[in-house]
Structure formats: C-alpha cells, structure tokens
C-alpha cells in the first residue's frame, strides 16, 4: 500500500518489530512532531505490555500463570484481548491468538476474561498467546485516540506497510488517497475514518495456516480488509486470508463498515470479495 499524498509531515518510529509512521495533514510541523513523540511514547508503553518478548509484559506474565490463577493486566491489554476474542468468535475461529498452542485450541478456550477484576485467567496450562494478528492495528487505534486529544484528527497512521488507519480527510480532500493490491491490477481507495489492512504470503513468504484446520490456506494470495478500526482491520485481513468467499460475504453483511478484497492464489488481479459501501470511502480500479 502506498501513500500518494505529498507535502505532508511524516514521523516514523520503530516498535513491535516494525516501523510505525504517522502522517499529519497539519500546517504546524513542530506541533505535529511533538504530538507524534507523545504517541510513540505511548506506543512503546503498549509494546511493553503486549509483547511476548518482554519478561515483565502482561502476556509473559500470563504465560507463567498456572491454570486457574488469574492475572491482572493493563486496561489496554485487556481491551486488546477482548477485541481478539470477539473477532475469534465473529470469524468462527479464523482469527485465533492462541494459534501457536499445542494441542490446538481456540483462544476462548485458553483464557477467560474477568471484567470485574480486569484480569485474565488461564483455562489451560502453558497459555501462549500471540497478538501479531491484531496488536499493531490495536496500537494504531490507541495512537489515534491520543492524537485526538491534541486535536490532530487529520492523520494517517501506518504500521509496517500492512495496516493503515485513516483519520479525517486532509483539508479539501475527500479522504486519504491510497493504493493497494498487487503492483498491477490493484485498486485505489480514498479512506477516512476507517482502516485498511493486508495479509498475504507475498509479504512474509511461506504459508498462512488456517487456525481452524491447522492446514496452510492455499486458495488466497492476498487478502485486504477495510473496517472502522485498526484492530478490526488488522484482525480481519488475517481472517479473510483463510476464510472462503462465502464466509467473508456472510461476515461483512453481518458487520456494516467492513469490506474485503483479495487476490486468489495463482492470480494477479484484485477482486472485491465484499465491496465497501461506507459513505466516505471509495474504491476504484487502479
């Protein structure tokens, strides 16, 4: 995906083993950079809570807990896990943050959320969660919320090249003009107040395993999801990669504001699996 806008202020930061970037359509570059610094400070804090590579992160602490012993977590960790479990439920297990656990199980069977204690209880021994399919998008949502407090709503946030969250359109524009899909045969989207995320074997190589079957998903080369939040888009692009066209269509009809595009295995052309109908978002052939 490529940002086609110009004359904008973009600030980058390394976190969660990737590059995050915030692009501001704002005249005061110094103010925008100060806001970005605060946002990235928050991003580092989020990473310290969500990463499985930090010994004192919430996920690392959860992994050490014995079955049945709940552990209190940060409100953001709790929120991210809540979204992940909801997406697992809504996608029929196509998104599964417990996909690395053996024997295979669903995240909802591995942990239980305790809202009154803001805690997570392992339901099985040796819980091993991986927020790689949702954490970056969730982080984008949190950064956007922070930038809102700075009255910086005309922003485009990016995690790696794969997940984008658009705020309000730049002044005088209909949205943030972006291109996605394969080099030829892609599409343009004009995005505002929405998120776009892509998953595919083109980027990382190898196979994406369908957590429902444990087998590689071989029917799709690329999958893109549009949704209202970064966390949803991030999670759905992972899920859409393994879901069938019919399952995707069913999901999107049940969840207004979501849309799906994909490239089939062996193909080079992007096609609408479930086109977007949001008022401020338009997708056209590239």
């Amino acid at each position: 995906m490529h940002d086609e806008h110009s004359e904008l202020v973009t600030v980058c930061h390394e976190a969660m083993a990737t590059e995050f970037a915030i692009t501001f359509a704002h005249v005061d570059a110094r103010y925008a950079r100060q806001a970005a610094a605060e946002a990235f400070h928050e991003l580092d804090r989020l990473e310290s809570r969500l990463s499985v590579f930090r010994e004192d992160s919430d996920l690392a602490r959860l992994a050490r807990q014995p079955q049945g012993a709940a552990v209190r977590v940060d409100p953001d960790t709790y929120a991210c896990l809540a979204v992940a479990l909801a997406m697992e439920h809504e996608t029929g297990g196509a998104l599964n943050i417990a996909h690395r656990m053996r024997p295979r199980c669903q995240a909802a069977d591995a942990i239980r959320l305790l809202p009154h204690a803001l805690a997570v209880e392992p339901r099985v021994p040796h819980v091993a969660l991986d927020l790689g399919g949702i954490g970056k998008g969730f982080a984008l949502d949190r950064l956007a919320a922070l930038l809102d407090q700075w009255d910086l709503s005309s922003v485009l946030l990016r995690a790696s090249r794969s997940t984008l969250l658009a705020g309000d359109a730049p002044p005088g524009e209909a949205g943030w003009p972006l291109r996605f899909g394969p080099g030829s045969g892609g599409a343009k989207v004009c995005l505002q107040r929405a998120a776009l995320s892509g998953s595919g074997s083109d980027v990382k190589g190898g196979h994406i395993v369908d957590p429902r079957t444990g087998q590689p998903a071989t029917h799709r080369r690329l999958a893109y999801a549009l949704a209202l939040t970064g966390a949803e888009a991030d999670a759905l692009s992972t899920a859409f990669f393994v879901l069938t066209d019919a399952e995707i269509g069913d999901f999107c009809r049940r969840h207004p504001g979501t849309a799906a595009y994909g490239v089939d295995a062996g193909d080079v052309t992007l096609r609408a699996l479930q086109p977007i109908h949001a008022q401020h978002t338009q997708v056209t052939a590239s």
Partner: protein
Amino acid sequence: MSAHHAHDDRPRLRRRKFLQATAVAASGLLAPSVHAVSAHRTAQDELRVALIGAGYQGRILLSAAVHIPGLRVSAICDIWKSSQNFARNFLELNQQPNVPVYDDYRELLAQQRDLSAVLIATPDFVHAEQTNACLEAGLHVYCEPMMAHTLPAARSMVDTARRTGRLLQIGFQRRSHVRYRHAVDKLLREAQLPGRLHVVQLQWAQGAKALHGWPRRADIPVDVLRRYGYADMTQFRNWIWFPEYCAGPYGAFATQQLDVCHWFLGSPPQLVTAVGDRGFYPDRPQLDSVFALYQFPYQDHTVRVSATMLTTTGTEGARQFERFLGDHGSVQLAENPRWTRVGREPTAAEWDEWVRRNYVVRQEAVAAHAAADEQADVHVSGELEPYRIPIEVTTLPCQAHLENFVAAVRGEAPLNCPAEAAYASHVTALKTLEATQSRAEVSLEVSDYAV
C-alpha cells in the same frame, strides 16, 4: 479548593464498543474467579495512599500500584488537568470510579483524612516541601528520586522522617529489583565472581529527543503555573532541562546508578573529577553529557568508578548498565535483560559451585564454543566464558519497590531504600556537578555524607 471530577476523554472507546460487547458475550460473563488477583485482606487492612504527581513517572507508579493487593490509590493530585484526567480514567478502568482529584497537595492533605501514605512523583524542586508536609501530617512517603536538587533540602527530608517517625522510601527501584538483589547479594558479595574488583562502569545513554510539547487545549493558565513555581508551559513540561527545578539529566539518571555503587561498595567516594557540556543541546541550560571518574575505597584497595551520562544520536548506543569488572570476571547489570551479562575470565577458577547453586547459568553457546577451543590457536587470547543470571522479573516496573514500601508500612519488612541510604548518592551526584563547573578534582570527606 475542593476535589472535583475529571471528564472522561476516551473518544475512541465508542468505536470498539460493539466488539467489546461481543467480547463479553464470548467470554461468557461468568462469575469471576478473582482469588488470584484480589487482596487477601479485609477492608480494614486496606492501605490507602494518594498519588501526588501523575506525569510520566507517576503513571508508572499508578500502573504498579493497582497490581498490589491491599493497596488502594484513593486520591490524585496534579496541577495539570491532562494528568488528572489520565489518572482518574485509569483508576476508573481499574474498577476504582470517582477517585477525588486535587490541584494542590495542601488541599489533599486537608481533605483526605483516610490516607496512610503518599506517593510523590512531582518535579524534584517540590519534593522536599511536599515530603516534609506529608511526613508532618503523619503519613508515610514514597518519593521518586532525586530527593531534591540541593543537599539542605534533601537533608531536611531525612530529618523530618526521623523526627516524625514516619517512613520515607526513595524510589531507587534497583534496590528492590529481583535481578539486582540477586546480583549484589549472591554474585558480588557472596560468590565475588569478579574476583578482586578494580573498576565499575556506569553508563546512562539515551537517544536525542525533542522537547516535550502539550495539547493546545491543555494549556495551564500562566497565573496557575506561576503559583506552583513554573515560568511557563515549556518549562513545566521539560523541567528536567532547567536548573530551577532539578539537577538535570545527570541528577535524574546517574544518581540512580551511583546509588547501586553506594549500595554495593558500602562507602562513599574519596575523589571525583568530571567534565560535562551542552554540546548536544546548546539551547538547553542543563548539561546533556557528563563524564565523571571516582575513587571509592573498597576492602583494602581503591575501586575506580566511571560514570557517563550521554545524549546519543541513535538507539544502538542508547543503553543503561552498571558493569563490575575484576580480575576473575565481570558482572553487568541492567533493567533490560538483554544487556545483563556475566562473564568468567579464562584464567579464573571454574564457577561450577555457583552454577550448582543456580546463582548463574552457563550460556547454551558455551558448549559449542568450548569444543572449538580444543583446537584453538594457542596464540589467540581466551575469551570471557558467558553466563546468564537465572532470575526473571515478573512484576511491573517499580512494583517490587512499591511492594517493599507497603510491606514496611505494615511492619512486615524494612525499607530497601530509606532516605538516609539514598542521601549518599545525592551528595556524590551534586558534588560531581560542582566538579564539572570548577574543572578541578573535588575531594569528598566522610563528613560530607553525614546526615
């Protein structure tokens, strides 16, 4: 001035509302089994504290506090609405709604009669005033370092704690850090892994950062800033760079590492020489880089200690550690486990006994390396044999130190860092800054540390 309620400013939460609602459905909303996360204490046992200062460090304390059974942050004080809102919302998310919020700590002390202690995380220049007032009010105090940026002010805190009989813990959290405690007690003191200790290297390096800004709508009126001692918003948000409020980055950062030296070596330095400059940020009044050399008496000899506080250009050089070097090996400590290292000199006796006791663990790579060594060229110098410290940190930053404070208030443990102990590193740090100005060796007398 009375307590007031901050506004909820979580505008994006509504976006996730449907997802969170379904998450609750997915998780079943079953009766929560909270035995592992709730306090095993009665309401009468609950320790009520107030947080004074809800900025960057205050938020770390707040995050840690909600993880400690039996500890309840029951009031917030900060002059900035933005910080008040954050803390109040955070506590609300942690099932503590409607926590009273104050602008002025004096109003807090007048209104909140249910407190046992306060956590102070304000800028250094108000630490002494606030700490002394809270101690006089009969409260125990956990105060973030530095205690103060002048020695008379720091000394007054020790005096007040002694006179009132209240506890005063200074937030040098390494003193409660499980890996540091293991290293100091087991590796350095008992096993003496470095052998004859010659050198200690302290490094605090951080990447360049622009001055902090603030949301325009969160401006504090100038008359309010002046009332609380700040010239303007820029200085309020960036007080570490202005001498009116603190001893600068060296005071803020190096003092924590000097405390590790004082803690382990057990006696203050006799000599310091130092240079410092503002080469990286010429427009900021405080030193951005300091190189200091100390001579600490230790056992029957002198240990040379170097302390460098650097502003660097990138993340690669930005790391903090304390490294103890002797003739048998080295122990490098850091809060980040990636930079925690232990090594045995090839000429030193084996550490099998310490491995057996699980004080250290041989690195996996060593086995392969040792096999290769059998065919090594005799002209190649031996390399350090790497070990790791088998201690994992399972608590949040500051949590262990705060837990120690809570235990001390309950009479269950001594403070790990009482003010008397913390005072020494403040003397050393402030004398170091004097040395950078005089550009001369400064002798330190035992009497300088008397408190």
